[in-house]
């Protein structure tokens, strides 16, 4: 097994401990708590009134738009990371490494301002 894979084994351990805790907690509270089910107790809470319709309903398109724009920009932000890690080596050779990144950053920023100017992030 290579060195780098071995470093991820403790993360698996941590996952096991965390999920063990969560499962124990949920099972324990299920065993310990009372179980008196009544029709109204199992009803959806809606300000103490009779629930109107179902919650599987339409919601503002803005949330969807924000999520889409997030995916677009998050992918671009990830491209900055490898560059940032090596940045100290780039500056040994002068301005070039930084200049190339500016070339990449410019279209990202143009896209960002386009999104803002289009009003995609306006909440009214």
């Amino acid at each position, binding site marked *: 097994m290579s060195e780098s894979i071995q470093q991820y084994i403790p993360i698996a351990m941590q996952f096991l401990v965390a999920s063990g805790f969560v499962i124990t907690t949920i099972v324990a509270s299920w065993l310990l708590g009372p179980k008196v089910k009544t029709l109204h107790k199992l009803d*959806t809470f809606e300000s103490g009134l009779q629930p109107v319709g179902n919650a599987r309903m339409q919601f503002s398109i803005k949330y969807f738009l*924000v999520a889409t724009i997030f995916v677009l920009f998050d992918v671009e932000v990830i491209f900055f990371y490898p560059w940032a*890690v090596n940045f100290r080596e780039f500056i040994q050779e002068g301005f070039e490494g930084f200049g190339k990144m500016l070339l990449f950053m410019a279209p990202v920023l143009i896209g960002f301002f386009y999104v803002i100017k289009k009003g995609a992030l306006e909440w009214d």
Partner: protein
Amino acid sequence: MEIMWIEKILLVVIVFAISLGTAAYSTLAERKVSAFLQDRIGPNRAGIFGILQPIADGVKLFFKEEIIPANADRFLFVLGPSLFMITALMTSAVIPWGKPLDLGGRMFDLQVTDINIGVLYVFAVVSIGVYGIMIGGWASNNKYSLMGALRASSQMISYELAMGLSIIALIMMSGSMSLKEIVAQQSGELYGISFLKGMNWNIFYQPLGFLIFIVCAFAECNRTPFDLPECEAELVGGYHTEYSSMKLGLYLFAEYVNMFVSSAMMASLYFGGYNVPFLEMLNLPYNVEVFVGVLAFFTKIIFFIFFFMWIRWTIPRFRYDQLMKLGWKVLIPLAILNILLTGFGMILTK
């Protein structure tokens, strides 16, 4: 070889216990801090100064009835809080709690694992946490929960972008994404002044980056002034309206674990982690130095947790359009500006 794995298991369990313990006592601290800020006494019945209050709360939650609403999606309803708690507990794996302890020549690393993408790992796990809220809110089949979940996920992904950008400037300076490496670099001399040893903290180079990071950390933890997902007055709890018993406990508790982990991240990324200024001048034995470092790290963490509470009981919450405007139109441009400034600064001072 085997002893190494036993050590790792031990460390994982200790980190887990400390995360939970700190989170449990943060709930008491929150009530005490709020009481202090509002000139009240706070919980004082369970034990002296209410010291047993977190245990009493936990026991109470265990003995409450588990309700799964008839209209809810049963599997997802249970999965939501579980996922949220598991991700909250997993981020602490890459945090260096101190320098390696010297156990008679064998070095005992006080970090669960030192992966070279530490910062990215934290971001990845935190992003999965969004699913915990989204799944829980959707599975409840309640309009308040759905609204809360949508607000939460929209807010968290928006601020994650600014957070990721603010970290880039820091990585440009450190040249590494391993948290161990980042903390170790901060043990040097501030601005090259030999007197200021152990003070080479990133906050002195990245004040703007830290400001963006801390605002985003508040938003990621759904803490006031960014607690719109759960605002009690309009959404009656938001994504956890329908939850009861320990499933509600997991949601509330995970928030405190998240607070602990993000405080630890802030302390180790910007405030030197376990580094203590001027400590080397005292010429302490190595292991004592390690121990003092761990204590200092926890002092920094506790300060940030207190800061979270201080803000919560001082500042009212934002309106949703203000929240989105701050995230997208202020913090992201500021973070990009910070990258440019850092880049120019590094080229000029290399």
